[in-house]
């Protein structure tokens, strides 16, 4: 199956008011073996002054690591793949720290302080022919829309994170806070859409049902209007979301099966 990606990231309304950069990042890669999509949210406080760089390093580290994982000769059966996946959290944290070391270029001597400066969350998904692998550290939302229109969370929701607290790649014990789930398509059907967003998106909705409605609406609108059209609208929608909602940076990225049938030519609805 072929997969298509839609995504964008906008600077938050409050960041514009306070002259702060967009501290989110997102990236994807696709080849014959796999599709990888990653989203990150740099923490942004005074302790994390390079977090926008940390977020960029995190999505790139995820792309490299998960792409290598999909191409590695880990064996064909699910048990062997699961065993190999167990190493991903430590490999991810190590890869991100190495990238930070290079980016920091010796500016910050103390390692703990150095990683803290670049602190970020990360959400990522890897899709191969046989499985989907979901990974997350920190806040943000990773949801799966099933073929029958249900939204599911493939990763456990962390109920301890309120009041802008988050787990982070910069923590000493970051490895223990990386959530990971591997779903094989011979057991669980391929998703209709996988949705990744930084917390600025969900925090902009009145409640979780209004947020989950967005995931379903995206899938329907892509089916109706086509991915290119929705991609062209996305930045405006995200800007509106930040302005009317949380004020935070907002990043949304999704992966879904490529639609091959003709798009329905329907009158476009009003705002």
């Amino acid at each position, binding site marked *: 199956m072929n997969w298509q990606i839609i995504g964008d990231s906008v600077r938050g309304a409050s960041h514009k008011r306070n002259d702060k950069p967009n501290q989110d990042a997102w990236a994807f890669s696709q080849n014959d073996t796999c599709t990888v999509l990653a989203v990150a949210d740099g923490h942004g406080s005074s302790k994390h002054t390079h977090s926008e760089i940390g977020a960029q390093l995190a999505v790139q580290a995820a792309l490299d690591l998960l792409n290598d994982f999909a191409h590695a000769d880990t064996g064909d059966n699910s048990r062997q793949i699961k065993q190999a996946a167990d190493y991903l959290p430590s490999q991810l944290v190590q890869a991100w720290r190495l990238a930070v070391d290079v980016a920091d270029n010796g500016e910050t001597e103390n390692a703990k302080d150095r990683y803290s400066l670049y602190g970020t969350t990360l959400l990522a998904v890897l899709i191969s022919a046989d499985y989907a692998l979901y990974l997350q550290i920190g806040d943000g939302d990773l949801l799966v829309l099933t073929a029958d229109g249900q939204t599911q969370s493939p990763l456990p929701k962390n109920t301890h994170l309120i009041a802008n607290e988050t*787990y982070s790649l910069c923590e000493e014990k970051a490895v223990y806070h990386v959530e990971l789930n591997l779903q094989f398509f011979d057991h669980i059907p391929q998703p209709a859409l996988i949705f990744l967003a930084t917390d600025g998106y969900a925090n902009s909705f009145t409640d979780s049902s209004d947020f989950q409605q967005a995931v379903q609406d995206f899938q329907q609108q892509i089916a109706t209007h086509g991915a290119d059209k929705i991609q062209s609208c996305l930045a405006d929608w995200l800007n509106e979301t930040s302005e009317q909602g949380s004020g935070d940076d907002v990043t949304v990225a999704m992966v879904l099966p490529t639609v091959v049938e003709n798009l329905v030519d329907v009158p476009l*609805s009003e705002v």
Partner: protein
Amino acid sequence: MTDIIKRPGGAMANRPLHFFWLADCSGSMYGEKIEQLNYAIRNAIKPMQDVAADNPNAQVMVRAIKFSTGAQWHIAAATPVEEFKWDNLTANGVTDMGLALQLAAEQLDVSQMPERCLPPVLVLVSDGQPTDDFNAGLAALMSKPWGKKSVRIGIGIGSDVDLEVLQKFIGNPEVKPLQANNAEDLVKYIRWASTVVLQAASAPASQVKDQVSTGVVPIPQAPTASDIDADDVW
């Protein structure tokens, strides 16, 4: 025809920020102290509204608890800051501060205050020492997720205030209780809590869990006390 497609998702809203005054109305506050507290809070309403207006991504909601012999809601409904008005408090009775904290704790449950809220702000103003079980009240407050994550400011009035109790309430060694020894300082501190602290809480950056021993919102520097004129000291 212009291609306008409806934005995905349901209703959007800015993030609620709940602000609580906890005001000591015991008998020792009778007279100038309670009058100045009423004046200071009323005087801070407009600056508070201005700060809130500067951040349209936060919806500031104000409530107030008064405590003396028992604790009651002075403003029970979460009131949008733009509609916030202050009715004068009167002073009489003892200092049941612990009950006031318990009353606040009841509103700090995630069932009442969803996860998308901003950290609540609690400003405790007192001139004395608790006469009830303060520790039980504090424990009730800290048993709630939003209680633990709240921004807590303690303002003492006069020289008889128990600063140790206010420090326990604040729960952050880097933030000290403020001690107002005269009307001018009380106005200054109340305004600071209503504006500068409110502003910090309304646009917080992410904080790494368990690395934050000093609260989820960095507390800005408080104003310094004015030079004491012996004639003006409470």
